[in-house]
């Protein structure tokens, strides 16, 4: 058996690819991970590392998130502390009473799915976040929300998987046999053979699907993050405004911004979140900066004097119905998809990896994967 042969080739060394490699290896498969860039070089490296249940309405994505939350908690015990896993909880704040009423309704619905949410009256908000602006309407605390440092999490997952990692190597073709079944990939360095190929190429997953003769309409949805100078813990939770939930669920191409503010163990405060569909354009936008800064300082006036050191853009892999594609390609036997997680890929990675590993080994799926079936986008022909 040559060293270019394995049981599964994962295309993509981001957090989803790393999770697929990890669970596949744990199931006993020999795994090769290949990426045209470095580890965590795409959307993973541009993310904030949110592991959220709070921003999801009841439904299949919330089920996936709840499973992932449990898996992340286990992973945090197995991986080094340097992945900066923090079960710090989320705090969603409403600007007024009617906003709070809407949050209350959402929390009640989420409770049925197993989400814990505690109402925080307006006069108690500052017990949780002393620097919050006065005059807010109240909020909800979500203790299950957590955070990791996404690049470190991906790199350590990958290392723990023991997979053979080939970075800087672009996949130029997906090889299929006479029966149409996948038999490997071709890269600039040669052919890699495996009976399974997992498409974990994130925002670029549509291209990988196309190489294999499949179809997956993944589009980029740009987001900017502002990074401040290092600070002591001025923001304790992940704090966001109630309209974030609506923005996440929206499919609009136009610019949307809603404040998401969180501290990090290393000191800088991260400020998101903007959403717009503008292709792969990284150009800085003055309007996005202004809106993110204005919304963040409205929540935390103390931040007005704090300096932004840098900003970066990332491209969320967006599918038309906002659900990821997880599972076998309907046309190409041996090809599995694990992409299109939009802004939730860090959080949803472990459950995705576990589900894909089970599918390759014929195991019991950890949850109903029907809603994530890549076949839902198959052109009617």
């Amino acid at each position, binding site marked *: 058996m040559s060293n270019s042969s394995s049981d599964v080739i994962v295309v993509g060394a981001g957090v989803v690819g790393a999770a697929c490699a990890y669970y596949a290896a744990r199931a006993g498969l020999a795994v090769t991970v290949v990426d045209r860039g470095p*580890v965590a070089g795409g959307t993973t*490296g541009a993310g904030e590392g949110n592991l959220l249940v709070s921003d999801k309405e009841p439904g299949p994505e919330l089920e996936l998130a709840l499973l992932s939350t449990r898996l992340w908690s286990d992973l945090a015990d197995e991986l080094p502390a340097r992945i900066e896993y923090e079960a710090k909880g989320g705090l969603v704040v409403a600007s007024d009473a009617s906003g709070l009423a809407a949050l209350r309704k959402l929390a009640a619905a989420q409770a049925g799915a197993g989400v814990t949410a505690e109402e925080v009256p307006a006069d108690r908000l500052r017990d949780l976040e002393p620097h919050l602006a006065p005059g807010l309407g109240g909020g909800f605390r979500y203790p299950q929300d957590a955070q990791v440092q996404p690049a470190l999490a991906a790199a350590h997952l990958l290392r723990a998987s023991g997979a053979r990692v080939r970075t800087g190597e672009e996949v130029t073709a997906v090889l299929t046999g006479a029966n149409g079944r996948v038999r490997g990939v071709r890269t600039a360095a040669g052919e890699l053979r495996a009976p399974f190929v997992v498409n974990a190429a994130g925002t670029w997953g549509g291209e990988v699907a196309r190489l294999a003769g499949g179809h997956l309409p993944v589009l980029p949805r740009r987001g900017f993050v502002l*990074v401040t100078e290092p600070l002591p813990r001025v923001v304790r939770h992940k704090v966001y405004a109630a309209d974030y939930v609506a923005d996440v669920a929206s499919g609009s191409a136009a610019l949307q911004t809603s404040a998401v503010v969180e501290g990090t163990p290393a000191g800088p405060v991260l400020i998101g979140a903007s959403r717009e569909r503008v292709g792969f354009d990284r150009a800085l936008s*003055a309007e996005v900066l*202004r809106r993110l800064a*204005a919304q963040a*300082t409205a929540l935390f006036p*103390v931040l*007005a004097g704090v300096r932004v050191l840098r900003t970066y853009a990332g491209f969320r892999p967006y599918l038309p119905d906002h659900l990821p594609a997880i599972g076998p390609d309907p046309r190409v036997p041996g090809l599995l998809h694990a992409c299109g997680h939009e802004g939730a890929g860090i959080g949803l990675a472990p459950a995705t990896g576990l589900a894909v590993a089970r599918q390759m080994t014929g195991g019991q799926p950890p949850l109903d994967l029907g809603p994530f079936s890549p076949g839902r986008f198959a052109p009617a022909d």
Partner: protein
Amino acid sequence: MPGSPSEPYDLAVIGAGPAGLAGAATAARLGLSVAVLDAAAQAGGQYFRHPAPGLGAARPEALHHDWAAFTELRRRFEASGAAHLAGHHVWAVMRRDEGLWSVHALVGEDGGEGAGHGGGTAFGRGGGLADGGRGGAGADGATAPGAGGGGMPRGGGRGAGGARGHDGAGAGVGPVTRDGRGAGARADAVSGREGPASAGAGDERTVRLHARAVLFATGASERHLPFPGWTLPGVVGAGGAQAMLKSGLVLPGRRIVVAGSGPLLLAVASTLAAAGARVPAVAEAAGYVGYARSPRTLAANPHKLLEAAVHGTALLRHRVPLHTRSAVTEAHGTDRVEAVTVSRLDRDWRPVPGTGRRIACDALAVGHGLAPQTELATGLGCATRRVPDGTHALVLDGLQETSVPGLWAAGEAGGTGGWELARVEGELAGIAVAARLRALPALTRGRRVRDLARRRDRTRAFADAMATTHAPGHGWTAWLDDDTDVCRCEEVTAGSVREAVTGLGARDARTVKLLTRAGMGWCQGRMCGAAVACLAASGTARGTVPPSAERRPLAVPVPLGSLAAGPEEPGDA
């Protein structure tokens, strides 16, 4: 109003060093409306940095043997009608429309103040290794986006409120360790801001002006390679030491070892010695034989020979010993540098065992040449090229235009080459911009342009020969032990960087940053970028890789409050 979207400037020049002044004066004389934005209070850039009038220095020319040429350039600029927007820290340039750019700058008390002499004094009091571009490392080039304030922060030693400019001393390399970085001290700094005294952001605002073309004359910042002890107080940048002297008329010590690599070292040693310091040694890591390998370029650049001769005689007069193929491989001291170890290097810059010699000193001025400041341009997608010394400069065509039409560059941003080259390129760019905007292509076909282009090509060839000579040998990383901090801001050691490369598969500076935080701190990798890139490249056979286009630090840190207020446009009340 000039600069508004409906009435843009023809040309915005970023940086008021020799390249920017020459470009602006030329374009304005050819009929363009021009604005020059610069962080400093006075024109001149790094090379022609001079004391603020308030310091009462009688003879700034004493530190500049090209002073007459500079005053002539400044006179032409002042007579040209170009607007000089001093105290403007440009933090981003964005594309507004086809053929229209918006330039965003931070202005305010902090900005203007810091830019003048703040760099020098802050540096001096803090005693830190200044980040060249921002703190004001000397050497040729424009100061452009450099914020004034000073010394290098270390491990968050910069209190959240002690921003660069206000009180530069706070930003110096103090004895602040990671422990000192605890929440206590910084929490105070932050909560202090909540009150009315927090004015930090209140005094600063961001302004935006528009232009049909942009000329990046952003200069260069000093390149540093770490070694054990480099974070000790008293270790300063070589260019920074010169800048201190030029702007604040202070010496970093009395007995100063000068080390590193590059033609700047001799100039720095001469300047320090002439100002009264004792210089017990100059350690140059390269040999100078490389110069001899390109006698044609040397012969074609008599001014360079003259310059070297001037510095050479000055060194002789002050009895400064020059050690080539030698480097400071360790700085010793507890509260401050007390001595350094100078070792012989082999061809690859690996220290030769047993050659270390201890030299007592109270300051060390160290630098490894200059790295072009390109981040404003690369943020807009301008392509870069690898210079023989391992730095990355903007790719420019024969008329100084970058790979993005409408954006030009001159001077060090296109590769370091000295102030005269910067002036030549500035003039070329000024003509080229005028030719484009006024639709007069004939302007670029005259004898003057041919003459300027020839001078540029000749000097560039010499600069490339020097860059090859002073390119760090890959053995320099042998200076580092695993405990040496490579990234001072985040206190990331060489050991952690090596582990990210060997254990986690990082192959480039960006991935090292993501996995170790090296370069994520206050200086955004301006200080450690070169070293991290070298360490990351040791994992591959390909050498260093260009900075990622995704790297998007704001060229100057901007307060959230100023961003939130939105930019003021020309014509706003």
